[in-house]
């Protein structure tokens, strides 16, 4: 129920308003005051939605009442209708406007005009309330969203902490692998060899063969552990990406491979190569692993290896092409699996970790790696490096 206040020094006017409200505005409750002070006191007691204030009153006039209502933040929203005499000057009405009046009505108050104005006022008040509700609802929504965001951020932080912890555990695992697993291995290898040295004369050729296998097994185990270690450290030991001149990088890699290149008479050529955002140590490792494989798995011909690069939408596609023995298409996926080999160790030495490490590094650079090859026709390894330059964990 909307509470209305009428302020008039003439009781008969107030009485008439009471009758009008009772008859036409059942949704309203009218309180009356015979002076400005009394009116303000009533509003202070309990706020009203609207006030119908006579301008011409002894003592505090209606304009002052309006001014005071509008000046107080707790009552400023009150809809004030000033009641003026028929002959009121426009100057007086101007003062009313300045005081913040929302509407004017002229005496004598006509029923139709009064009811219409009050209805408009009620609609306005309702609209204002609706707006406030919407604003409140919006605020709630924003609060909810803020809470959602905070929850999401907390989850992310937790996730990052978990990731850091799991990386630390992986580091610890890698360290254990590098140190603690090697020691017993060294014991086996060393003492079998010592046995061989000391008791060579007392052992037959079969015993020496057994010793050879034992030592070979231990040495191989050591290489596998080193490979596993290198593999596990791609993610945990990676550096931030920086612009990397792959042509200069390739030159360094070829220096590392100099012995293998000279021994096999390999010829390594390349097209102009770009600068890409990368972890240079890791990217060098990709080139080194792919080129050394290209040289290792050579055919009867001296190895020829060619490196080139082409730009795609948001990545560079590198290729390492060789004239080696090639790979049967059924094995194209398999060669990127850890410790997966296609040949016996007698044919080609190695533990099957080079292509796998290349794959993990390329994936960290938001790229893909694949091979196109057929037996006897050489192989071309392709890998992409994203130009966006953010490591993928």
């Amino acid at each position, binding site marked *: 129920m909307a509470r209305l206040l009428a302020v008039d020094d003439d009781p008969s006017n107030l009485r008439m308003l009471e009758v009008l409200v009772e008859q036409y505005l059942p949704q309203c409750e009218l309180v009356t005051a015979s002076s400005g002070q009394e009116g303000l006191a009533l509003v202070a007691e309990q706020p009203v939605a609207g006030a119908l204030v006579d301008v011409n009153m002894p003592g505090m006039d209606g304009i002052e009442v309006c001014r005071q209502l509008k000046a107080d933040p707790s009552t400023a929203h009150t809809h004030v209708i000033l009641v003026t005499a028929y002959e009121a000057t426009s100057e007086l009405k101007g003062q009313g406007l300045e005081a913040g009046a929302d509407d004017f009505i002229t005496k004598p108050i006509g029923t139709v005009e009064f009811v219409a104005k009050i209805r408009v006022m009620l609609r306005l008040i309702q609209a204002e309330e609706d707006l406030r509700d919407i604003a409140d609802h919006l605020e709630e929504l924003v609060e909810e969203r803020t809470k959602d965001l905070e929850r999401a951020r907390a989850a992310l932080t937790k996730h990052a902490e978990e990731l850091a912890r799991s990386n630390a555990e992986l580091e610890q695992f*890698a*360290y254990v692998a*590098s*140190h*603690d697993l*090697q*020691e017993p*291995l*060294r*014991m086996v*290898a*060393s*003492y079998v*060899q*010592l046995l061989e*040295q000391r008791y060579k004369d007392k052992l037959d050729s079969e015993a020496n063969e057994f010793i050879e296998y034992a030592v070979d097994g*231990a*040495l191989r185990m*050591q290489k596998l552990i*080193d490979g596993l270690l290198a593999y596990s450290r791609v993610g945990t030991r990676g550096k931030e990406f920086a612009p990397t001149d792959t042509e200069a990088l390739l030159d360094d890699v070829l220096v590392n491979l100099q012995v293998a290149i000279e021994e096999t008479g390999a010829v390594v050529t390349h097209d102009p190569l770009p600068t890409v955002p990368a972890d240079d140590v890791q990217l060098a490792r990709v080139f080194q692993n792919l080129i050394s494989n290209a040289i290792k798995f050579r055919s009867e011909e001296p190895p020829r290896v060619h490196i080139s690069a082409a730009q795609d939408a948001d990545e560079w596609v590198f290729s390492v092409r060789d004239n080696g023995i090639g790979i049967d298409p059924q094995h194209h996926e398999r060669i990127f699996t850890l410790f997966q080999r296609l040949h016996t160790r007698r044919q080609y030495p190695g533990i099957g970790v080079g292509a796998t490490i290349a794959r993990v590094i390329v994936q960290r650079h938001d790229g893909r790696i694949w091979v196109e090859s057929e037996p006897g026709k050489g192989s071309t390894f392709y890998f992409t490096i994203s130009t966006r330059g953010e490591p993928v964990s």
Partner: protein
Amino acid sequence: MNQAPLRPVSILLVEDNAGDVRLIEESLKTYKMRNLLHVVEDGDQALAFLRREGDYSDAPRPDLILLDLSLPGKDGREVLAEVKSDDDLRRIPVVVLTGSSAEEDIIRSYEQHANCYITKPIDLDQFSRMVRGIEEFWFAIVKLPPNVSA
């Protein structure tokens, strides 16, 4: 030129793995220089030996320390840090001799003033060569400070 020392060189080996101790002893046997190898098995014993505390009140001051990193209790890294921050002991060369080839161990050891870092080779011949190489280098090539306390 270096003259052969009048007394046998004294080496403190800090190593908990009996197998490694034996391998080092075997390798040293064949070496021409007279040497005394003292073996302790953990970090606390090593520091007690160097400071001549408890059972080690008569312990000689070693010319060289061979230090494994992974030891029970107080490990080799802590021993290294304590030796190198001790005014009296820091002049004794410390050779870190360990199974670890982890980069962080290598960096940390040198940061703590290890005199050199060696990863134990898995091959027996290489192991023997390594031990003899240590002797050759530290006692025939390198000039060491006089073996007296500061």
